[in-house]
């Protein structure tokens, strides 16, 4: 680490839980972020700022003016650009030390498993159940921790699924494939700072996982109704009948 890097990361390295060893771990880490929208924006900004060495951005969408109320990694001149290109430029401006790879199509099948295998943490910042189920399966298959966040209207949810621990539930223990809703922020609306709250918690959990410090939200689901600022923590149990994480 050179003098400029020491200065850049000094305010987190002065935390004894992080120190130089934690910073080194971050610089050697690789995080897969799926979705560069309302959640992926704060997640990617905080992970790049903190010095996560390798970040893979996945999104096939382009920046639209209606995104800019909440997707804070993009700016007005980015309208019409691929979100991954817009985000990469912004993140590199914040921290040129970070290596950023971009994937401009839906990650599926072998390619998804390959990226999950290479990643130390997967961040689910997507906006639909289909992608969420696919990321969960890849997480379980490759034993890569999954930091899962979701938000719509005034409601947000965030948790960690860590398949390295056999007692950990997975996303499929929480939501069955009969889940009927396909509500999106585009169709139903969302208040912008809620995405910042949930996305920031996802970033915080990711950094802790990468450095191996503290305790994560594994086995606990945070539920926030931001209209009434009602924050709940639910205990999640592994589903003995789960078709994804209970196949031995």
């Amino acid at each position, binding site marked *: 680490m050179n003098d400029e890097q020491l200065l850049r990361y000094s305010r987190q390295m002065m935390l004894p839980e992080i120190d130089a060893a934690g910073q080194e771990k971050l610089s050697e880490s690789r995080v897969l972020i799926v979705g560069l929208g309302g959640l992926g924006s704060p997640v990617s900004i905080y992970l790049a700022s903190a010095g996560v060495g390798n970040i893979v951005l996945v999104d096939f969408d382009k920046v639209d003016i209606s995104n800019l109320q909440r997707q804070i990694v993009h700016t007005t001149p980015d309208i019409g650009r691929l979100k991954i290109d817009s985000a990469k430029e912004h993140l590199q401006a914040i921290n040129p030390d970070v290596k950023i790879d971009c994937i401009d199509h839906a990650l599926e099948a072998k390619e998804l498993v390959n990226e999950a295998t290479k990643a130390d943490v997967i961040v689910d910042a997507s906006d639909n159940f289909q992608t969420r189920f696919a990321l969960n399966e890849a997480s379980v298959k490759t034993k890569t921790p999954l930091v899962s966040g979701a938000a719509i209207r005034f409601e947000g949810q965030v948790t960690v699924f860590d398949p390295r621990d056999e007692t950990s539930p997975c996303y499929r223990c929480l939501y069955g494939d009969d889940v*009927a809703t396909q509500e999106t922020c585009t169709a139903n609306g969302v208040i912008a700072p809620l995405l910042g709250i949930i996305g920031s918690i996802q970033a915080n959990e990711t950094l802790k996982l990468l450095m191996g410090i503290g305790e994560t939200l594994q086995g606990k689901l945070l539920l926030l109704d931001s209209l009434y600022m009602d924050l709940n923590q639910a205990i999640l149990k592994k589903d003995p009948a789960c078709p994804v994480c209970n196949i031995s």
Partner: protein
Amino acid sequence: MEITLKLYASLSQYLPENSVKHSAKFEISTSDTTISILDRFNVPDKEVHLVLLNGVYLHPEERKSLNFSDGDTLAIWPPVAGG
């Protein structure tokens, strides 16, 4: 016995009119289950995914059979996938 039912977000529309925020207290019988209580308030099955009894997630099978104790809190959240 009396329990507290909390219906969050879009589900709060199914609570009685005199409910405060997303919460209502009411009497139930010893044979009531999550399913029978939600039927009583006409909450559609397809909107029920996160069911918490005293803060612990209930899997679908438990919702059909598990009975309550006096003072329990049953909380329901709709599914959330946006981002």
